Every structure is written in structure tokens, then in C-alpha cells.
């Protein structure tokens, strides 16, 4: 079996939670093997991350370079290609960074690419069997991947439960010299914070959240009426923002706001993993959707199969009556 590497995302000297999830995924590929962590970065932050990972990985490959101080995927890709052995298996979180880095990395390493794996059902030296989702999570698929010349696999955040691993006392191996000269044809300039909106949805204990099922902009008022009756705020999923029916500041999800309400009413929301990633604190979740197979019903506490355009006004009227 080829050697497995876990690419570690980190910020301000602290490794991301995905590090432990990649380690768990690696064990599903090859239980006998101890995967190596790979860290790219610069300075004391990079050193701190490598040091902390010694507790959970037997080997930590450090690639320190001033140009890697910010994780520019174009530069990280060059560094990994120069440092990692041919034929290896590289695990990367399926995040905005992972999708930026990984497809091109698989080409440069001449290896197979499987994006957004939600499960791994075993592997031998030639092939691996994985599970992915398609159609926004409405169906899953088994995938067979030829790993005879290695693989780059991105791992769905939250899909692999971290293992309670025996404490390791790993070694940090400095691979910085092997990274070579890194040249950027894409240059990072700055990060801009999102504009703040009129309503701060993170402050509300109850959210009436709408998705594509709201149909058109004028129907947003139906959700607002219910929210008013409940003392709640209206939030939404990505398609509502894409259609310009609500401001970006109302969007719940990995690319929007992270909310922690007590009660979350998901109205006409299919339930993509990117949306669910923005809901924390295990709220009481009610899903209302006219598609009885919508993935949101897998995660909600209570489900109602109904057209929200008819159901929401009835609910609002009844609450007002009482």
C-alpha cells in the first residue's frame, strides 16, 4: 500500500479540526499504516502547528517557505509536487482551499482524483472503493478509484469521526529544501471581511430560514410574517442570495454565516452539506419541504412534507390566533 499523507490546514499556529478527520480517513484506507502529516507555512506559526501535531502523528513533514506564509494554493501545489513521493495518497479537506489545490495537484502528480469523499470502504494496492454524493446529496454513489499511481482525495468535512488515538510522540521532518523555488502567477493581496447587513442573524434564538423553495422574491414576505409572529429573524440558503432575493449577510452556510440558534425552521431548503455546516449547537430543527426525499429530512428533528408557500401563511395565522 502506498504511503498516505494528510495535508493540514492551519491558522494562527493552530491546526484545523480536519487534521483528525483526515487521520481517521487514512485508517479506513490502511489500518496498518500511520499516516504522515504535511504542513506548509512559515515562521513560528508553522513551527507551532508541527509541534502540536507530534501528539497525533508519528511523522510530521514540515515545508517552511516565506512565500507559503499565506496558503496560496498555486504555491502549495508546487511545493507538494516537489516534496511528496510519486505514487503516494494525499488527503485534503474538501474546503474552499482543498478544491482550489487538489484537482491540479492530481494532474501534476499523475495520480487519480476523488473529490468530496464521504466514506471509504477499503483499499488494496491497486484500487480503492469510496462513497460520494451527487445531486446535492439526494443520492450517493460508490466509486472505484485506480490508485496504482497514487491518488489525491478530498474529504468531506465532518464525514469521518476522529479516532481516539493512542498518543504519539512523532518526529518533525524538515522537507523545506526539497520544495524548490516557488513562483506565483497568482498573488494573494488581502482578505476582505463581509459587509454587515441590516439584521444580525447570529443573534437570534429562532431562525426562519428559506431556500430555493420560496420561489420568488415577493414570497420572502411569507417568511418575514412568520418570523415577526415568532420574534425570529429570516435567514436563507445560497440560492436565495444568488437570486438576489436576500442580502449575503442573511446566508447560513460554510461560505456565509455560522449560526447557533435554539430553533431552526428550514423552509424549502434541500439541505446541502455546505448549508448544514453553518448550523451549530444542535438546534431543534424543523424541515418543511415539498420533496419528501429532500436530504434535509435526514438531519432534521421534525419534518413536514408541504409546499411552504401554502404552509407558512397557515402557520403564521394560527400563531397570531393563539
Amino acid at each position, binding site marked *: 500500500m502506498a504511503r498516505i499523507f494528510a495535508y493540514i490546514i492551519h491558522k494562527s499556529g493552530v491546526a484545523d479540526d480536519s487534521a483528525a478527520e483526515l487521520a481517521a480517513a487514512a485508517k479506513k484506507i490502511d489500518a496498518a499504516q500511520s499516516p504522515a502529516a504535511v504542513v506548509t507555512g512559515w515562521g513560528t506559526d508553522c513551527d507551532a502547528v508541527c509541534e502540536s501535531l507530534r501528539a497525533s502523528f508519528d511523522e510530521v513533514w514540515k515545508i517552511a517557505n516565506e512565500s507559503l506564509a499565506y496558503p496560496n494554493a498555486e504555491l502549495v501545489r508546487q511545493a507538494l509536487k516537489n516534496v511528496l513521493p510519486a505514487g503516494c495518497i494525499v488527503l485534503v479537506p474538501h474546503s474552499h482551499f482543498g478544491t482550489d489545490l487538489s484537482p491540479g495537484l492530481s494532474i501534476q502528480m499523475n495520480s487519480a482524483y476523488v473529490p468530496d469523499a464521504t466514506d471509504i470502504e477499503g483499499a488494496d494496492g491497486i484500487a480503492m472503493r469510496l462513497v460520494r454524493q451527487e445531486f446535492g446529496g439526494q443520492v450517493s454513489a460508490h466509486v472505484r478509484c485506480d490508485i496504482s499511481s497514487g491518488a489525491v482525495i478530498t474529504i468531506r468535512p465532518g464525514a469521518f469521526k476522529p479516532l481516539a488515538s493512542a498518543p504519539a510522540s512523532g518526529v518533525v521532518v524538515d522537507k523545506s529544501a526539497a520544495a524548490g523555488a516557488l513562483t506565483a502567477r497568482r498573488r*494573494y493581496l488581502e482578505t476582505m471581511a463581509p459587509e454587515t447587513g441590516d439584521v444580525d442573524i447570529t443573534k437570534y434564538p429562532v431562525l426562519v430560514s428559506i431556500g430555493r423553495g420560496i420561489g420568488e422574491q415577493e414570497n420572502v414576505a411569507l417568511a418575514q410574517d412568520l418570523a415577526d409572529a415568532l420574534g425570529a429573524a429570516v435567514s436563507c440558503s445560497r440560492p436565495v442570495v444568488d437570486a438576489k432575493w436576500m442580502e449575503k449577510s442573511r446566508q447560513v452556510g460554510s461560505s456565509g454565516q455560522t449560526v447557533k440558534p435554539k430553533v431552526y425552521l428550514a423552509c424549502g431548503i434541500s439541505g446541502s452539506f455546505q448549508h448544514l455546516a453553518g448550523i451549530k449547537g444542535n438546534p*431543534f430543527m*424543523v424541515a418543511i419541504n415539498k420533496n419528501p426525499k429532500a436530504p434535509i*429530512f435526514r438531519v432534521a428533528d421534525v419534518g413536514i412534507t*408541504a409546499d411552504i408557500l401554502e*404552509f407558512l401563511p397557515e402557520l403564521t395565522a394560527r400563531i397570531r390566533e393563539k
Partner: protein
Amino acid sequence: MEILVCARRVPDTSENEIEMNSAGNDIERDDLVYSVNEPDNYAVEEALEIVERTGGTVTVVTVGGDDDEEILRREMAMGAKQGVLLSDDAFEGSDGRGIATILAAFVKKGHYDLILTGVQAEDGAAQVGGMLAALLDYPFASLVNSIEVQQGKLKISREIEGGNKEINEIDLPCVLSIQTGINEPRYVGMRGIRQVASVPIPTFDGPYLGVNGDKAGLAAAKVKRLDYFVPPLGKGAEMLEGSTAEIVDKLIDLLKAKGGLN
């Protein structure tokens, strides 16, 4: 600026509920309604807005068969000057790398300053743009949600976590995957489609592109989908049943119990 947009025809999930077939190994394909992959409309719109500002033309390309011409015509009705079909029996069963290989061969036959893709298609893979860039040795950026044209380069922003924008400059030529919401794709009416109905669509095959079964198609694919399935529901939601009035009352009781209603 000469811009190439890579598009794809997919089952339209706003028109269909995706269900399993009776054999339980594939999705039910009878009566599926197909349309252009929605994110690709944002890529075409962005390309059109760029050429409106700076000049140039927009070409839309897809890998597929005769059925896929309809999405090329739709994007031409939006304003793309040319649609191109890359089609060969040997391309069938290609994985992402195979598709990117076919597209890269086409790109090398022409001259494009900028290549755009939609952020992802129905398979959620988000892979072809990044692979295409690597095959061409062009720089790449994903999740792009704004583009400003500068001399020999672009200033772009990428959508990263928490609604933050990562601002980069990127040299031309390059490949970008375009995030939905970057613009408002223009409406296409039946009249627009009719106007381009008889425009010829150049079609290029494997021998012309120099792509044979060793580089694309099922035999070359390192990644193969074996089946579709619906995983067991697990705990799942408790479904409220009854008349609408009964469901509303049950829900109000639950909301009161859980602190959603005082």
C-alpha cells in the same frame, strides 16, 4: 479578450426529483429533464460582461453528443458568439481527468486569454477547471466571485469561509471556476433560441484533437462510478402527519416546548 467557457448539460434538479430506478443501481433516467448546468450560466454571463467592457468574443464548448447541442445554443442565445462540440464515441465514460484532457487539446488548437467554468456540476466534483489549468500549465483560481480586467492580468476575488473574500491578482492566460451569484445571468427567451437555431456548431473528434482511448474515455478513467444508492435514513426526522390544521397545531406545541414560541 478571447474567452472560452466550458459548459455541461445535466439533469435539471429544479425540474426533477432524483430517484432510484427499480433495479436500485442507477437513478431513474426516464422522463429526466436536462438543462445547462446552472453555475455555467454565471460563467457565460461573466464572460459576456467582460467582452462588453473590453472587447473580444465568447466561445462556449462542451464535451458530449448531439443532445448536448441544445445547451450550446442556449448559451449562444445569451450572447456567446460560437458554440463548439467535442464529440467522439471514444470519449464516453471519461472521468474528470478525461474531460479535462479533451478540453485541453481543444484549447491548444486555438488562442484564448481566459477560460471559465461553472463552480461545479451535478456530481459536486468541482474538478475539471483545476485539472484543465494544470494540463495547460496555466494558473487557476476557484470560487471566483468578482473579476476586474487589468493589463495582462486580472484582479479577482474568491469566496472563502464565513463570507470573506480573498483578493488575488492572476496572470493571463488563466482558468477560473466561477461561483454562483457573481452576476445575474440574462434571461433567454424562445425567440433568442430560435435566432440561433440554425447556426452551425463546429464538431471536433478524437483524431482531430489527438485524444484517443489511452487518454480519455472509460478505459483511461482512473475513477469510475459503480452505482447510485440511497443510504439508510438513520434516525431521520419525525414526520408530522395529518391535515394541515393538525400539523400546524402539532408544530406549534413542539415550538412551545423547544423555546421557539412563548
